[in-house]
């Protein structure tokens, strides 16, 4: 039942059409039916979908089909642009008070991930040179205070708590405490509550009145369905939200909630949580989210990740060396190290267009242990062997297999694969001497 990759589905549908030149109304209708389904399947709010489809339709009809693009690609491009525009165009950051401390209040439904996200946000701000203070104002859920304290200890951020006192009093006292202890950001972790729970919403209003937060952030589970809009709207009407944080995006939820919230309430999504680990909070990129909702992968993030992890100088060195001496197992090992730095492989695969939502790939994790085995094999070689793999004959293979705890077949396979890669690299370097560094990397994994 999965709608999989919208892009490929669109291609499929549009292939049947033979339109050249301009997009006709019929072309667009056919394509937009798929778009509509994809958006609904991604939990984008019904009303937003309807609006959106109309906008795209009026923009796409009569549009010239560019030579370089097929009609399907043309529609995708328009859809993608409109989606990104709808989601806020550019990213918006947290507004820090000109006169510290900045007070950030985290609100949301039960189980959205407020406590964990508070911790992640504190860690992020701390890494940017701030001195955050976490405040345990969830006095209702059993052990919520303890949870924040444990998190605080893990990430080395102070946590203010007063047990199960009145949350309004806690917030007020915490503010004083932060002032006198030189904290420039105060993060209030409030209890999860239903937006229709008047009593608890009043409590939030009182906390707001007492602490005058600069940022009130709604924490929203990326898996939320059509109700996300009601929740955001209600919190916004009662408290005046400054932004939202989308959590649990590391699953396979498309996160249509994000689009709906932004387009109905105008509240920008500021961060997304993408891992259970404490460093798993990232700035939100609307354009990337657009691609995710449509199942088109997130090539930009991937490229950026690659750029951040790859040592520019090393890449240059490697490229020079390749042209001089060819590719050796030493280089191969080094590249493996670089790739590992980019993060878990399954995350990377998810970012490649079309890959994240391929049925075959769902639940299949890229086997990291396979990489480890390759590394072990290479490490069991002598320097001489790494530089000149052709000298590795039968008895050396046996030794390497023993040394790395693998089988001779594994060693054989690696050497064969390496030989193929080397051939490929040769072609690359000879055809396009100035090929982008990214290209080389990917060729290794094809």
């Amino acid at each position, binding site marked *: 039942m999965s709608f999989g990759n919208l892009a490929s589905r669109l291609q499929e549908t549009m292939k049947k059409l033979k339109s050249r030149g301009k997009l006709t109304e019929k072309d667009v209708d056919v394509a937009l039916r798929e778009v509509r389904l994809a958006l609904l399947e991604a939990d984008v709010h019904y009303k937003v979908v309807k609006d959106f489809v109309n906008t795209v339709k009026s923009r796409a009809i009569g549009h010239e089909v560019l030579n370089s693009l097929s009609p399907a690609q043309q529609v995708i491009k328009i859809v993608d642009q409109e989606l990104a525009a709808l989601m806020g165009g550019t990213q918006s950051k947290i507004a820090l008070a000109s006169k510290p401390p900045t007070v950030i209040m985290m609100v949301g439904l039960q189980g959205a991930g407020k406590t964990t996200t508070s911790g992640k946000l504190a860690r992020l701000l701390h890494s940017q040179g701030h001195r955050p203070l976490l405040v345990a104002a969830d006095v209702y*859920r059993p052990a919520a205070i303890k949870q924040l304290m444990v998190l605080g200890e893990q990430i080395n951020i102070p946590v203010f708590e007063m047990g199960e006192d009145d949350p309004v009093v806690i917030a007020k006292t915490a503010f004083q405490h932060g002032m006198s202890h030189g904290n420039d950001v105060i993060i209030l972790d409030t209890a999860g509550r239903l937006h229709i729970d008047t009593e608890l919403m009043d409590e939030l209003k009182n906390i707001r009145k007492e602490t005058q937060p600069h940022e009130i952030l709604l924490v929203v589970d990326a898996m939320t369905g059509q109700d996300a809009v009601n929740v955001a709207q209600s919190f916004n009407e009662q408290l005046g939200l400054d932004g939202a944080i989308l959590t649990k995006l590391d699953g396979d939820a498309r996160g249509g909630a994000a689009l709906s919230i932004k387009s109905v309430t105008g509240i920008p999504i500021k961060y997304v949580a993408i891992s259970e680990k404490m460093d798993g909070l990232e700035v939100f990129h609307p354009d990337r989210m657009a691609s995710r909702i449509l199942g088109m992968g997130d090539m930009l993030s991937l490229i950026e990740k690659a750029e951040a992890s790859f040592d520019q100088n090393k890449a240059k060195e490697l490229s020079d060396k390749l042209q001089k001496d060819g590719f050796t197992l030493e280089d191969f090992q080094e590249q493996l190290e670089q790739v590992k730095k980019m993060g878990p492989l399954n995350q990377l695969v998810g970012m490649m267009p079309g890959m994240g939502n391929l049925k075959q790939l769902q639940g299949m994790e890229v086997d990291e242990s396979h990489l480890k085995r390759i590394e072990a094999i290479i490490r069991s070689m002598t320097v001489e062997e790494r530089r000149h793999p052709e000298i590795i004959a039968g008895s050396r293979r046996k030794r390497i297999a023993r040394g790395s705890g693998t089988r001779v077949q594994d060693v054989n396979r690696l050497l064969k694969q390496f030989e193929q890669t080397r051939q490929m690299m040769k072609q690359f370097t000879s055809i396009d001497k100035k090929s982008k560094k990214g290209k080389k990397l990917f060729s290794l994994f094809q």
Partner: protein
Amino acid sequence: MGWKNIFSHREKTETDVELQTEEIEEIAEPISKSGLFARLKQGLTKTREGFVGKVEQLVRGRKIDDELFEELEEILIQADVGVPTTMMLTERLRLRVSESKSTEGNQIQVWLKEEIVQLLQANNETLVLSDQKPAGIMVVGVNGAGKTTTIGKLAHRLSNEGAKVLLGAGDTFRAAAIEQLRVWADRVGVDIIAHNSGSDPAAVAFDTVAAARARDCNVFILDTAGRLQTKTNLMAELGKVHRVVIRELGRELDEVLLVVDATTGQNALSQAKLFSESVPLTGIVLTKLDGTAKGGIILALAHELKLPVKLIGVGETYTDLQDFDAKEFAQALFA
């Protein structure tokens, strides 16, 4: 027309909020058997007002035509019923319309209710625990679905029914999850088996089964750490915990329950699918139905996966966990 419905509904929210508080105050009453139905209704008030109210508004005085069906689809999709299940339902309604040649809009509402009851009833099962001691329940789900709270409520209910209950704190990952379950154990007055945070959940599971047997408990309930269904490693860990439990128990567990948040959209289908690949799910617990979420996802779960919804959480207090009864649910929805 459909648009206006949405907006007029929205304007109503303020008064809705007031209504809701009054109802919440009523909940404080001691529970009687007859009170259960009333509370289910209270918990579902929002669903009823949102979903059924819209259907009612839609069909009143209308003739059946394509436009009406389109708007009906809209309402169903907005209730998180999902595209395939919505299509199935409207298809069946269209069939009935053409068979009966009825043109009265009101008829649609009656039929829709029948279809919903039929869909849900086909998979209607309640919690089944064997008399063999100990019976075993394992609770799984994504992060923040409400597993620990559900276990607290379930423990309260079972021990009220006279069962000797033992809890297993199998969430050794999330900060303070063990403490959270311990608070519930203290409140309800049942024993708990817990290791240190960060320890092996399979070891906790093993000890829970062994202790349940040694202490002659009627039933043990094993908590597990929340995990997203796409994390293969964590799902494999869950599979291992399950294997350890059934090996030690010497038979299958009585219940392996997937906890799903009612506000969840179409992702619940993926959750149910992928979790059932790691552990043999016996049913679903739908939590947080007291919000404004329509909970329409249970229709999709029933239609696409044939997984029975066994329990529903309709409120914050620990008496607010109830058996799911398709008829009663639809009744409350349309009352």
